[in-house]
């Protein structure tokens, strides 16, 4: 049968397009929804904060776009496993909460050796976490190899109310388990900061 050239060309164009569409259906299909605002109340307990913090890191915070938990090898950003335990010793003079806060509010202040700068300021767009959301994230990070000491009343530098916060009690006190710190305590004065990656 002698098929006209124009029909052959049309068939080729349609078949090629159909093939690529088919390839497009073979890859994982994920619809990414805009981040959902998580409800945070001022009377949340530390464990509740950690749970919400994990949700924020998964969603609005976009943390796991870059970071991993429990992976090793050629990583682009630091793995967060055990960060709750080593945060206090990352930067001399900074408690774990202070260090974690600094890594979120001023991520370029401290770069974990072997990695490049690149973490955005989490409190500003496009991520734009609120101070309360950041507290929840810190609460979750503390659970990775440590204990949650931060509370919803903790004031930290970099946050909207941070500048007015009185000097903090040593974070070590918190980590020793002095229950939830009152607003003026905990991670107060020191400037937090980052792992390009935390």
């Amino acid at each position, binding site marked *: 049968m002698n098929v006209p*050239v*124009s029909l*052959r*060309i049309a068939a*080729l*164009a*349609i078949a*090629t*397009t*159909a093939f*690529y*569409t088919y*390839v*497009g*259906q073979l*890859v*994982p*299909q*994920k*619809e*990414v*929804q*805009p*981040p959902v605002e998580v409800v945070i109340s001022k009377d949340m307990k530390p464990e509740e904060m950690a749970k919400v913090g994990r949700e924020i890191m998964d969603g609005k915070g*976009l943390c796991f*776009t*870059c970071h991993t938990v429990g992976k090793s090898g*050629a*990583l*682009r*950003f630091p793995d967060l496993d055990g960060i709750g335990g080593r945060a206090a010793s990352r930067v001399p003079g900074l408690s774990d909460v202070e260090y974690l806060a600094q890594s979120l509010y001023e991520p370029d202040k401290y770069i974990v050796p*072997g*990695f*490049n700068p*690149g*973490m*955005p300021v989490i409190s*500003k*767009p*496009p*991520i734009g976490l609120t101070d309360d959301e950041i507290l929840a994230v810190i609460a979750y990070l503390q659970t990775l190899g440590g204990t949650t000491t931060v509370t919803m009343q903790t004031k930290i530098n970099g946050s909207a109310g941070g500048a007015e916060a009185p000097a903090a009690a040593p974070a070590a006190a918190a980590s020793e388990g002095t229950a939830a710190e009152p607003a003026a305590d905990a991670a107060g004065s020191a400037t937090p900061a980052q792992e*390009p990656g935390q």
Partner: protein
Amino acid sequence: MIKKGLAAALLALLGLAAIVGTSKFLMDREYKSPALTPPGQTAETPRDRGLADQRAEQEKADKEKPYQEAEYRPFPKVGSRVAVWVAAQLHLLFAAFVLAVPLFALIIEFIGYRTKDPRYDRLAHEFTKLLSVSFSLTATFGAMLTFGLIILYPKFTNYLVSVFSPTFLPYVGLFFFEAFFLYTYYYGWGKFSPRVHLLLGLGLNVVGTAIMLIANAWLTFMTSPSGISETGALISTWDAVRNFTWMPINIHRIIANVAFGGSVAAAYAAFKFLGAKTDEERAHYDWMGYIGNFVAICAFLPLPFAGYWLAKEIYAYSQTLGLTMMGGAFSWLFIIQAVLIGNLFLGANYYLWLGMGRIQGAQHFQKYIKYLLILVALCFMVWATPRSIISTVSEIRAMGGSSHPALGFLGVMSAKNTAVNILILTTYVSFLLYRRGGKTPTVKWAKTGNLAQLGIFLAAASIVLFLGVYGYFVEASVRIAFSIPQVLSVLFAMVSVTVIDVFLYKNAEQAGEPRWGQIAPISQYVLIFIAVTFTWLMGLMGYVRSGLRQHWHVYGVIRDTSVDAFTPTLGFATKVVSVTVLIFFLLISFVFWLASLGGKKDWEPRVKEGAKNNLPEPEDLGAAV
């Protein structure tokens, strides 16, 4: 028959009159309450009063209605996003074609002017035949896109206007000049001195590129905004223009446009070749297809390097944005891209290998093709290997994670960068073999030259492979920087080997001229396949460039709060891309058809054999006057 028709029409009219009459009769007898009718007023039914009250309420509500600026407006059936997406993509495809064709038409015309070979002039003219209708279609889709944005996304469009309004007037002015240059260039072919005509072509290219630079500023600002305050207020329009991704997109687009334009022009030549009636036509369109494809592949080879630069700037602007692109929601899109680019390389190589058949004395190179094919296939496989694999829980357990224990190593950038660089080198070797077909160098240093070329190839390939493997053993900050020496070594190899080859084959003995037109017809379908694949690739990469912003109209500044704020699945995106590509090819076929009308005879009235022509002869007309 006519009487029956008239009777039926009359009957229908009578029926209609009966229905209207009956309705009026019944309505006139609506209930009227005399008790409620004030004396001296016309009798009014309760229904009339109700309607009057309703109208009065509506009028009052209309007067008191506050002005509210619409944020979004819906588009029927497909939604606003898809409507704007398709209009933008079609506009970009035609714009790319209209920008690219003058670029290489001018170069071909210039070659013809310098070599005095009229074939080049004819070829350049034939390329430009495709321009005028494409230009109109570009403008039409541009208008559709603009109106689409104004109507469907008024608030966002208003914001863009507030930032970029100083660029609009120059844009319109340049558009006017583009029309002037384009039509003068096309209609003035052969009517001006060659130098004046070349200048017109140059003007067309300069103006076209300037238009693209302005439009690129608008779209790149959406991805990497700058020149504004934290709340989005304009500080400097110029800073907004020269944002992080502006120049990389400019360069990437110019190269990609040439590759795309070349491939579509080659598809036109293939279409004409397949329908050719004479050997002369076949020879001409075979040559035209070869030139179009040559232009496409020449531009295609450095394109990944421009892509690296663009990606680097995206990372420099925002690591989050970069990682969303390469490691987040869009990471699987690059597997689809690998399939497309792999097909392009395969198609381009296959066409070159088929082309060797038309060169006398090139047969002895054909024995190398199988090795080149193996290399191309291997690189293709590495590039298309994903890092993580979709698998069941038991499969994940068996593998010890979502990555395959062995193949997972091929899914990372070290492997992929290596594969694409080797792929580029292999395609370049194919081209080199084609170029050498049927020629024997006559220079004394021929052996040394060949050895030098081989040495350069081996050195470049070794650097690429070594850095690719070494990348697995170093930290991220070091590994990322390896792509630069890999790219540079490949570029150096291509440039230096070409320079040596030009001198090596100067005054070479030739076994015979290429037998244009004597190529297997399947080669022409390969050209069409390449053009469709290029177009699809442009659609896909246009999607990732725009979709990367996810739920932001302007990244980090203007948030998308519409119903379309979510990022669709890749499956859905590929369907939209496919529909757009098919619409484009339907329209470009129309352009091809229109362009081919120029060579046809003018219409003449058919005269029946033996019948006397009743048209008056000119002399008769003169006598009559």
